[in-house]
């Protein structure tokens, strides 16, 4: 489809059912997130290896010429929805989406050839810090490969990384302060090419994040509806009260629209339609807001029990609020949309 078309083909959905089932089953068989989130690494190394060996998920977005599966954003959309539902705590988003997109968007053939196969095999855990600051880095404490920028150029660092995980709002996606030796940094892409590469990679990664958020929101809705059917107050299921029922409908609205937004943006990316730069930020803004809202309302529907440490509601709530500051805030997305439309 030509680059000027703004309407992507959305027809591939059905054939992804199998992929969805596989990923969902794999994630269901993993150790529960509560059992790993308090460990230092914050995820299960053995399951990470199985994910690579049995399902090959880390290779999903890596082109075949770099030993990947060469799948598109549409397939990633399905995988990330499932990751979000399961609150997967490993470095999947950082390594298999963010870092992969940075390398691909850099256009640095040699770096891709050297670095992508390890990421695809799951033997290299990569992450990226794209704002040029010393802010904490996603999964920095388990990263073998760091993509960083000085604001002008990109560098890959794969040795001498000193990292310290730190307290963070999201208990299921760790952040770390990272120091590394400048000397060990390898330039990636053209000198001065970082801003363009980062902008392109950020748009792409945002679409994965949006799908993850849509999946998380869908899970919150599911828990809420199930609870509203079963919990009785005043002699009847609380879901029969309009205050609860209508809130669940508003949650459904956001979940359905969030899923559609992420799905649509993914199709725009795969088909290179002119709508992509808008659709990416629309999905990012909408899904982020939707997840935050749905996760909050889910606590409310659950009442007291939803406010306890033991209930999973707060893990979603924490994830949703932490996402807000990961790759730009909602307001930044809104402003980007105005810019890109040429206002």
């Amino acid at each position, binding site marked *: 489809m030509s680059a000027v078309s703004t309407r992507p083909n959305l027809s591939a959905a059905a054939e992804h059912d199998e992929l969805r089932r596989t990923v969902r089953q794999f994630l269901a068989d993993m150790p529960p997130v509560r059992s790993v989130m308090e460990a230092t690494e914050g995820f299960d190394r053995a399951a990470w290896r199985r994910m690579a060996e049995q399902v090959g998920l880390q290779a999903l977005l890596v082109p075949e010429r770099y030993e990947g599966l060469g799948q598109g954003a549409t397939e990633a959309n399905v995988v990330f929805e499932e990751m979000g539902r399961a609150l997967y705590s490993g470095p999947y988003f950082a390594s298999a989406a963010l870092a992969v997109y940075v390398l691909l968007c850099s256009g640095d053939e040699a770096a891709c050839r050297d670095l992508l196969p390890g990421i695809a095999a799951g033997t290299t855990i990569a992450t990226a810090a794209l704002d040029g600051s010393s802010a904490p880095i996603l999964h920095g404490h388990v990263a073998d490969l760091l993509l960083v920028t000085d604001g002008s150029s990109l560098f890959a660092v794969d040795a001498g990384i000193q990292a310290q995980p730190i307290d963070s709002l999201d208990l299921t996606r760790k952040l770390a302060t990272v120091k590394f030796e400048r000397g060990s940094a390898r330039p990636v892409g053209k000198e001065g090419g970082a801003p363009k590469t980062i902008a392109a990679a950020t748009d792409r990664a945002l679409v994965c994040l949006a799908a993850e958020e849509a999946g998380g929101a869908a899970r919150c809705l599911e828990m809420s509806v199930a609870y509203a059917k079963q919990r009785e107050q005043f002699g009847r299921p609380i879901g029969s009260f309009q205050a609860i*029922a209508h809130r669940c409908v508003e949650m459904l609205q956001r979940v359905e629209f969030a899923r559609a937004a992420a799905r649509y943006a993914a199709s725009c990316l795969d088909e290179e339609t002119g709508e992509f730069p808008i659709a990416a930020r629309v999905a990012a803004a909408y899904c982020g807001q939707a997840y935050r809202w749905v996760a909050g309302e889910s606590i409310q529907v659950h009442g007291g029990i939803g406010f306890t440490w033991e209930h999973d509601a707060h893990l979603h709530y924490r994830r949703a609020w932490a996402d807000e500051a990961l790759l730009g805030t909602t307001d930044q997305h809104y402003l980007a949309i105005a810019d890109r439309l040429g206002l």
Partner: protein
Amino acid sequence: MPELPEFLAAAEAWLEAGYSRVATEQRGRFRWGEGSDEVHVFQEPDPVEEADAVPRIRAWRAALWDGGYGWISGPKEYGGAGLSRSYEAAFNRLTRKFDVPGDAALTVSLGMIAPTILRHADEGQKRRYLPALYRGDLIACQLFSEPGAGSDLASIESKATPEGDGWLITGQKVWTSGAHLADIGEIICQTSPGPRHHNLTAFLVDMHAPGVMVRPLRQMTGGAAFNEVFLDGVRVPGDARLDAVGEGWRVALTTLSHERSAMGHSSFGGAGILSTERLMELVRHAGNAHDSVVRRDFGELITQLRVARYAQEVMAERARAGQPPGPEIALNKLALSANMAALAGFVAGVLGPKVIADTGEWGTYAWTSVVLGAPGYRLGGGSDEVLKNMIAERVLGLPRPS
């Protein structure tokens, strides 16, 4: 079945023969300061213009029908072309290149009543009404709401009582669009004192029959997009009954689900008042394109409008793949009313004093129609509350909210 390209080539030739092309640069493109600055929220046609337009629309439908394009996706036995919906959609896109009358005035006729007839009518009724509706020989309206029964169809008080071979209908209907143009009306009446939802029956009533009186209903915008319809002992024949006695509620649900779908369709930001270009021009001409608060608000509004469109396209694609939308289609209607309210807030903020008084400046005061129309969107086509009840029960499987 012709291949799509052939079909389109033939259609283009047919259109070319009868209608002039619209210059590409005029099409769809919004230009600040050019032409009318009217902001259409409801169809509130000028009576004089309307008298002129209706014959043109009827002639266009007749030409379409006679050319084989009147009901492209319709079954052949009722005069349709028996092609898939994608042919119909492609043809509709094609017509935008030509100067032809739109079908907006026939939204109820073709978007709501015809599908109801296709689903609920008997063979004779289908043969009698479907070609006539698609050919524009008949225009239909919907007679559901009553002063005492807005959202609650089960409290309808209009009564149909058997008389001879037919029925005698007496009652009052309200919020009817286009009743003054209609030849027939789908009416829901009480036919027994029986239990709620089982005491209703649907009829197709001749709007020109003695005893039918149509009066315009002025809404808060100042215009009159709707009517009140009074029925005083109107005789209808036995074959005017749609589906079985006592099935009126089910018939009404079919019509309402099409209504929501038709309304939801306008929820995305592609054309007309929700056009991105038109909104950007508004912001620029109001002089606050560099105000970051306005830019942020604009980004938020566009996000809401686009997501509604994306969701609709994803749903439409699922439908094409064989998963026709169920009651969740009403989510689009909810999005539409929310988006109209958001639009009202945005334009009022951008225009400030220019939206409260008509200084004659092009494209400013005209936006009051959005401010005044927004509340109507939350009420028409099923109020937000009624739709939420329905979705909670039928999509989420929650106990019936009460």
